[in-house]
């Protein structure tokens, strides 16, 4: 399988699952339009914020360091709604991708061409882990600049004017950190994607049920038989572990930060944008062979699986 053929396989995925392309575009557009429409409410928002915590904005205008880091935090956090929508469409894509072809019997057409099951499964896995995330990142980069431009216009001449300063170096760094996070997330979630591919390749019908039921049954059985929750812990660690490495605005050692703390620790929060710490987790590396085994398993299932 050469690069050209593999590119064709990925393109094929985007032809079939157009939501992978368009849902993030729509989300990005909504974000920009929403910002544009909220521009009318600037006056009242400003008063509210002023009334809540004037010291915050005092710091903002006097400390250029805090200002630039806050810029980095809010511009990169614009990816959150888009990433959420991205995750959602990727999840349903993975459920469908090895099931729909059996349901509409098109698997017989795909299999009439010289594309191995391994290449097929890999193309689907990489579409979910790399292609769509990078697309979401690109869209968030563009929509982020648009949102920033609207905000900059909107806050000029108000006490919030420092929010309209563009910090090029910080912007570039935080965008690259986001991109790096996407690749780290791809490594961390590869076994989850592998599991979904296996479920999709196996499901005799209703892949959603076949995805959710096995872990639910295992967790329930463990609770009943041993009264322990190791499996639940294992699953929840795999699903949440990546996000634990993101030092968010909301939690730090499980406690909520108040606004003055944010100002005090803004440097720490900014540095927390990167999930690079996850590279130190043994579980990340243990997950990779597991992911490879699951991808292989999905390919084996597809090899002999009949149309449904």
């Amino acid at each position, binding site marked *: 399988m050469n690069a050209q053929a593999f590119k064709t396989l990925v*393109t094929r995925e985007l*032809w*079939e699952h157009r939501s992978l392309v368009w849902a993030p575009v729509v989300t990005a557009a909504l974000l920009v339009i929403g910002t544009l429409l909220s521009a009318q409410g600037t006056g009242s928002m400003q008063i509210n914020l002023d009334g809540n915590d004037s010291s915050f904005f005092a710091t903002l205008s006097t400390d250029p360091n805090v200002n630039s880091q806050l810029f980095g935090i809010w511009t990169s956090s614009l990816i959150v709604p888009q990433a959420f929508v991205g995750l959602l469409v990727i999840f349903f894509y993975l459920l469908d991708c090895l099931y729909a072809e059996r349901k509409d019997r098109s698997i017989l057409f795909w299999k*009439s061409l*010289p594309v191995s099951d391994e290449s097929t499964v890999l193309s689907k896995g990489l579409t979910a882990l790399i292609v769509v995330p990078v697309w979401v990142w690109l869209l968030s980069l563009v929509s982020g600049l648009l949102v920033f431009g609207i905000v900059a216009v909107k806050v000029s001449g108000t006490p919030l004017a420092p929010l309209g300063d563009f910090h090029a170096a910080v912007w570039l760094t935080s965008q690259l950190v986001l991109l790096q996070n996407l690749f780290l997330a791809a490594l961390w979630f590869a076994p989850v994607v592998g599991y979904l591919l296996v479920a999709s390749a196996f499901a005799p019908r209703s892949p959603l049920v076949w995805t959710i039921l096995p872990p639910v049954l295992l967790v329930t059985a463990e609770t009943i038989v041993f009264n322990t929750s190791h499996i639940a812990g294992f699953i929840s660690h795999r699903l949440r572990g990546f996000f634990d490495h993101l030092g968010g605005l909301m939690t730090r050692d499980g406690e909520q930060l108040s606004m003055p703390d944010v100002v005090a620790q803004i440097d720490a929060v900014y540095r927390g944008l990167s999930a690079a710490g996850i590279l130190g987790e043994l579980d990340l590396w243990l997950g990779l062979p597991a992911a490879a085994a699951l991808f292989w398993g999905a390919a084996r299932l597809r090899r002999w699986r009949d149309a449904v």
Partner: protein
Amino acid sequence: MSQPVIKARGLRKTYAKGVVALDGADFNVGAGRIVGLMGPNGAGKTTALKAILGLTPFEGELSVLGRDPRIARDQLINDVCFIADVAVLPKWLRVRNALDYVAGVHPRFDRAKAEDVLARTEVRRGSRIGELSKGMITQLHLALIMAIDARLLVLDEPTLGLDLLYRRTFYEALLNDYFDHETTILVTTHQVEEVEHLLTDVLLINHGRIVLDSAVDQLPNRFVQLVTTPANLPAARALQPVHEREVFGRHVLVYDGRDTADLEALGELRTPSIADLFVACMQAPNTAAQTGVRQ
């Protein structure tokens, strides 16, 4: 016959519920032949094709282009094309993208040729497959397949559900534009009359076994059909027909490997059509199947 393209020995396949689809089938398919694998519904045709294409596990020996489809499917499929059934092209795919896709993944796809074949049809590049009629989908599928330089083409009921006009053009295109005496074509159908005139070989399958395996030009030498009267029937029966039926008070008996000299006195002799042999083999479980007919 040179090295066979397909060689099957003792092909067996039992499905989960104990249904025996293939029950020790033996056959060869020679290079450059057009072979019809025919049998009634449930005879094992599709299962045999699936085994040949590496789509299903099975027992026994099978070599396709010198490879075992169970272990070397990925290499095999470079040289094999198939239309597994009508309507397996996905509804969401656009005609243009179907061409893009095959061009992208198949090293031996000649896009210009496919475009050329499509240009002679009503199929529009921008249409989704879901918007095309069944006949047009088959035309598209055939255009894609015909532009691939393959050594073996497998067709499983390729014209099922098509009207007569499309069926006729399908086989004409196949014979005129595709067949070059190098490519081997294996086609299954239960509409025997449809393909009768284009085959070079017949394989009749029933209950998972091959009941007739012969070159078409050998059939007149082997089989003869006698139309006789009730008076001559006992004498005719004594010569061990493989099949017998009654039509408007006259008896039609089919013989395998019987000298015509013995039969001439008993009535009118004809060469049975493939359809006649099909009926004879399918309705005579303990004659044609177990005696002499198999080569």
